[in-house]
C-alpha cells in the first residue's frame, strides 16, 4: 500500500538504500489479511491516497499509520504528545498523531513523511536536513521535518531564535539542534 514508494524509489539512491529497501520489501505485505474481532471500518486519506481499513476503535492515528497502513516513517517516542516524533500534517497543519484517534480523521488530508518525498525526489526540507546533517540516529527526524515544513508557513519571525522556539516541541535526544536550525533556516531563506 503506502509503502510501495519506498521500494520503487530506491533506484535513484545509494547502494545502502538499495540493499536496505530490497531486504525489507518482502516484509511489507498487504496488511489485514484476516479479520480481527472488535474492529471498525474507517477510510483515511493519506498522502493523497484513500485507504479503507478495519481498525480498533481505540487506535490512535499514529498506531493506525504504523501498524495498519505500514507507513512506519512516522515514529512513536512517547505516545503522550510530549516528544513530537509522531508529527504529521492534517490539512497542512502539524499535529501529534499520537494524540488523535484515527476514527476522528476520516474527512481530512493526512500527510506523512512518506508523502513529503522519497530518496531520489526529496522535499527541499529533507534535502536540507541531509545537507546540514540535521540528525544523528534519525528516529525523531520524520517528526522534525514534518514540523519544520509546517513551521515555515506559520507566522514566525526570521531569527534563529524563532526557529528554536518553533521547533522546541520536537525533542532530538541526540541534540542535533544546531544543524536542525541551520537546515530550517536554509529552506526559509530559499522561500
Amino acid at each position: 500500500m503506502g509503502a510501495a514508494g519506498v521500494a520503487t524509489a530506491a533506484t535513484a539512491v545509494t547502494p545502502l538504500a538499495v540493499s536496505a529497501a530490497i531486504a525489507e520489501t518482502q516484509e511489507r505485505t498487504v496488511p489485514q489479511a484476516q479479520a480481527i474481532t472488535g474492529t471498525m471500518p474507517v477510510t483515511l486519506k493519506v498522502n493523497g491516497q484513500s485507504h479503507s481499513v478495519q481498525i480498533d476503535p481505540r487506535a490512535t492515528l499514529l498506531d493506525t499509520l504504523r501498524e495498519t497502513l505500514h507507513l512506519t516513517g512516522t515514529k512513536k517516542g512517547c505516545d503522550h504528545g510530549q516528544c513530537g516524533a509522531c508529527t504529521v500534517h492534517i490539512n497542512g497543519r502539524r499535529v501529534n498523531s499520537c494524540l488523535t484517534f484515527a476514527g476522528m480523521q476520516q474527512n481530512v488530508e493526512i500527510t506523512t513523511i512518506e508523502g513529503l518525498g522519497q530518496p531520489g525526489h526529496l522535499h527541499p526540507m529533507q534535502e536540507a536536513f541531509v545537507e546540514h546533517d540535521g540528525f544523528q540516529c534519525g528516529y525523531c527526524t520524520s517528526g522534525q521535518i514534518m514540523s519544520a515544513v509546517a513551521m515555515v508557513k506559520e507566522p514566525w519571525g526570521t531569527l534563529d531564535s524563532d526557529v528554536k522556539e518553533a521547533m522546541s516541541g520536537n525533542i532530538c535526544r541526540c541534540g542535533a539542534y544546531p544543524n536542525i536550525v541551520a537546515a530550517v533556516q536554509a529552506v526559509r531563506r530559499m522561500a
Partner: protein
Amino acid sequence: MDQVTESKVIGVATPRIDGPLKVSGSAMYASDHHFPGLLYAWPVCATISNGTIAHLDTAGAEKMPGVVAVYHRENIGKLYRVPPSTGFTLILDEKRPPLEDDTIRYYGQYVAVAVAQTVEQARAAAESVKVTYNKEKPDTGEKLLGTPLTTDKPDEKSKRGDTAAALQAAKVKVDAVYRIPVETHNPIELHASVAVFDGKKYTLYETSQAVVNHRDVMAQMLGVPTEQVQVITRFLGSGFGGKLWPWPHGLLAAACARNLGRPVKLVVSRQMMFESVGHRPAIDQRIQLAADADGKLTAVQQDYVNHTSMLDDYNEGCGEITPFLYSTPNLLVTGGLVRRNVGNPTAMRGPGAVPGLFALESAMDELAIALKMDPVQLRLKNEPALDESLNIPFSSRHMKECLTVGSEKFGWAKRTPEIGSMKRDGLTLGWGMAACSWLAARIETEATVELLQDGSARVACGTQDIGGGTYTVMAQVVSHETGIPVNRVDVVLGDSSLPPGPISGGSWVTASMTPAVLAASQNAGKALVLAAIKSDGSPFKGKKPEDLELVDGTVRLKGQQQGAVPMAEILRIAKVNSVSGTGKSDSTFGAAKPKVSFHSYGAQFAEVTWQPEIARLRVSRVVTVIDAGRILNPRPARNQIEGAVVMGVGMALFEETMYDPRSGAPINNNLADYVVAVNADTPEIDVTFLDYPDYQLNALGARGVGEIGLAGIASAITNAVYHATGVRVRDLPVRIEDLLVPANRTTHLA
C-alpha cells in the same frame, strides 16, 4: 603498521550515506518491522517495588476480544540464565530472566505479558490482569555515602603514595561531596523487539547497540544453539548506553513468539523505560584535594558510592579518569555499591567518567578559588608527563593545547574572577571551565570487503550505526583503500550473522572497525591482483603480484598510469562476480599490562547568563576543544560533540529521575516531567578538533567522539553558575531554588 597520512576521503566532511533513508522515513528501525500474522505483546508491570505477588488473576483478561494469551511465571515456559563469563562476552545487566519468581524488587518489574491481535487489545488486556501483592517497605533512599555497602568496605580502585598523610599536611584543601541523581537515557526510539520464530530459528529485530552479544545472550536464555538466533538492528534510534545489553522485554517477546508460533511485536512504553531498561545510577562522591601554595596538587582522593539493584551489581566506575588526569604523588580512589529497590542501572553515555569528572572538575574549580588561582592555570600547572597511575606514556595527549586553544576561542583572558562581576545587556555572566577525558580503545573486530563486477564494493561488519555515522565512515575507509567512490560502497551492518563487530559503546567503534575494514580492503585488493595475473585475457597475466598496484579503482603496473585497467574490468575478464578479503582488529581493551595509555582529551568552556530578578539561568555559550585522534568525518563528529553539549546542558540544569519513597515508582516517568534539553535550550556551540592522529591505536590514527563531549560539561556549567551567582551547586541538577539562597552559600555541605 603502515600509517595512513594522505587521503582523498579520510578526514573529508562527507554527507551521511544513510541520510536519504533517514529523512524520508525509509530507514527501518526495530519496531518498523511487520510480518503476516503479527501479534502484539504488552507487559503487566508491578505496581509495588518491594514484596511478592500474592495472587495473579488472568481469567478476565484472557476472555477479552482479540486476546491470544496471557503469560506469567507458570506458563511462560523455560528461560535460562547466562553462565558466568570472563572476558567481554554474554553481557547483560539484569541477569534474572523475566517472570522467574514471584518476588518484586523494583517498580515496573514485569509480572505477566498479554498477547493480542492489536496493540490496543494487548494493552487493555494487560491492564485488566488483576494482581495483588504482599507489599513491603521499599528503599529508594537518595543518600548513599554512609549507608550500608554491598561489601564490608569500599574497593580500592587506584592507589599511589600516602594520601592520608598528604591530606593531613596540606596547605590548601578542598573536601566536598557531589551528588548525581538518577538520569534516564531516554533515546527517542522506544526499546522494542519484533520476534519471529519459525519452529527452530529465532529472528529478532531488536533495539540493540550490540547485535552479536545480544544474539549470544538470547541463545543462552532461550536455551538454543547460537546459530538458531539472529539479531538484526539495521537502524537504531540511539541508545546512549541504554540499549547496549538485552533487557527483559526482549525475552518476553521471544518467549511469546516461541509459545505461539507467530511473530510478536513488543514496544516498551516511555513510562516503562524509566523502570526496566536501565538508568545512570544515583551517585555520591566525596572528593578531597590537597595542594601546595602555588597550586601543585599533593593529594587526590575520590570515594564514590553508586546505587545498584537488589540482585545485580552495577559499578559506575567513577574513578575512570581521576588516576591519570593530573600529576599528583598521592592518590586514592575507592568505590562502593548500595542496594535499592530500583531497576538495574546500566552504562549511560560516558559511564564513570562523566559523573566522575563532574565531581573532580567541580572540586578543581573550588581548589582554584581557594588558591586564588585561575582555573585554567591550575590545570596547566598539574599536567602530567605520563600516566602516573600505571607509569606508562600517553599515546597522544594534547590537554595543554585543548586548554590554551579553548581559552583563546572563548576569550577567557577577559574573565574577572569576582562573583557576579561580569555583565552584558543587563545580564550577569558566569564563565566556567572544565577539563575532560574519555578512554580510547580497540576491541576485537572482523570485517569482510568484496569488490564486485558492477564496480561497486560491499563491506560487512556485525557492528551498528547508532547515529554516530558508522555507515558513512565504513564506506570512507573502503573508498580510501580501493578508490571506489563512497556512493558505490554498499555498507552492511546491524546483523549478528555478519563477521563479529564491536559493540556501539565506549566510543570505540571507529577505532576498532577501521583497522579491520582497512585490512579487509587490502586483502580484497590482493585477491583482485591475483585475478589480474592468473586470468586468461588479462593484460597482466603472468606478472608477479609485486609488479602491480591498485590506484583510484584501477589495476596497473607499478608507477605506470598507462595501461591501467578498472577493477571491475579485471573481474569481467576473469568471469567472477566478486573477490573478497577479510580483516581483523585485535583488542587493546582491558589489557592486563598496557604499555601505552590510550585516552582522548578535551577542554570545556561555558558561559551562563543569570537574571537574579526573575531567577532565570540560561547556558548561552559553550566552547569545546577535543583531542580525539584523527577525525575521519568531521560532519558527524562535530554533530556528536554538539549533541553531547546539549545533553550536558540537560544534565547540568534539568535531568533527574525522582522516586516516590512510598511506592518506589519513578514519578516523573515521561518527557514532560523528566526534562531534557530542547532546541530552545541550545547554547551557541563552538567545536574545535585538534586532529592529531593517534597512530599507536590504529593506522588511521582514529580514536572516537561519542562520549567525550559530555564529559566535563556539567561541571563547566556549575562552575560558571558559581562565578555568576556565588552559589556552589554540588547536587545536580541546578534548581532555581538552589540559586535563591544568598550568595556565597553552598547548597550541599560536605
